[in-house]
């Protein structure tokens, strides 16, 4: 797979996150997929593995933010890696990463790294650049 094809996969998956299209995860993520991302409710560890665990994470985002929509602001690729600067927005209606709901329209930004192996997403790492600022009540 080329770098441009890797980027096209990232565009598809970020769109699918917003549509809660979990079927896409089976198509594009490796069966032994691993991820390291900020822990959400019910998970004390930041590192996890498996497509099913990741689906629960996508659902948790949708539960916490009404009308959630993701956007890739910047995307670059080199070798088997793709990096994005991304954002997601929605109405913060549920507890998220320790922040109680503000019921406000919010925008959270983050950085996301993906490693591809044999055309499938093998590993991702991600973090937020502004979560406390975006989700604090004041």
């Amino acid at each position: 797979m080329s770098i441009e094809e890797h980027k096209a996969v990232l565009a598809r998956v970020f769109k699918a996150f917003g549509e809660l299209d979990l079927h896409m995860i089976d198509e594009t993520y490796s069966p032994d997929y691993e991820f390291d991302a900020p822990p959400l409710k019910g998970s004390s560890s930041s590192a996890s593995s498996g497509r099913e665990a990741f689906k629960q994470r996508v659902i948790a985002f949708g539960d916490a933010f009404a009308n959630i929509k993701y956007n890739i602001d910047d995307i670059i690729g080199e070798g088997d890696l793709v990096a994005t600067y991304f954002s997601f927005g929605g109405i913060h209606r549920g507890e998220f990463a320790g922040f109680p709901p503000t019921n406000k329209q919010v925008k959270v930004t983050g950085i996301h790294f993906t490693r591809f192996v044999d055309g499938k997403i093998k590993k991702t790492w991600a973090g937020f650049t502004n979560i406390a600022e975006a989700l604090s009540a004041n």
Partner: protein
Amino acid sequence: MTVEQNKVLIGRLFEMVFNQVKLEALDEICTPNFVLETPGVPTSKGIKDGVESFKQRIISYSTAFPDIKYTIDNTVAEDTMIAVGFSFSGTHKGEFLGIAPTGKKVTATELCFAHVANGKISDLRFAPYGTPINVLLAA
């Protein structure tokens, strides 16, 4: 800028500024209107800025962890943008995020994403990932 030149630029940021704490090098590494986006940095006129905020962040880390050492783990570069995954290790000897010194040696991980213009970094965003430092210090 070529991909290789961008890697040299980021390499200088990590080695000279982060590891050797030569803050004066930032003036040649960052553009004058440099934008910093990182957790905990206050906004000014709706944007996060700039070199002064960046210096304060670097000093706060190197004061809390005097033996701090940064390592670049992964790099993704194109002509106008570069992103790196990095880790840093240090011994907690000064107050950090309101936590009194614990003497613990910790290693934390972050991602950063930069835009490059005219051979300098015009904006730089940081996103911690993995176990947060405050959790590591409390463990």
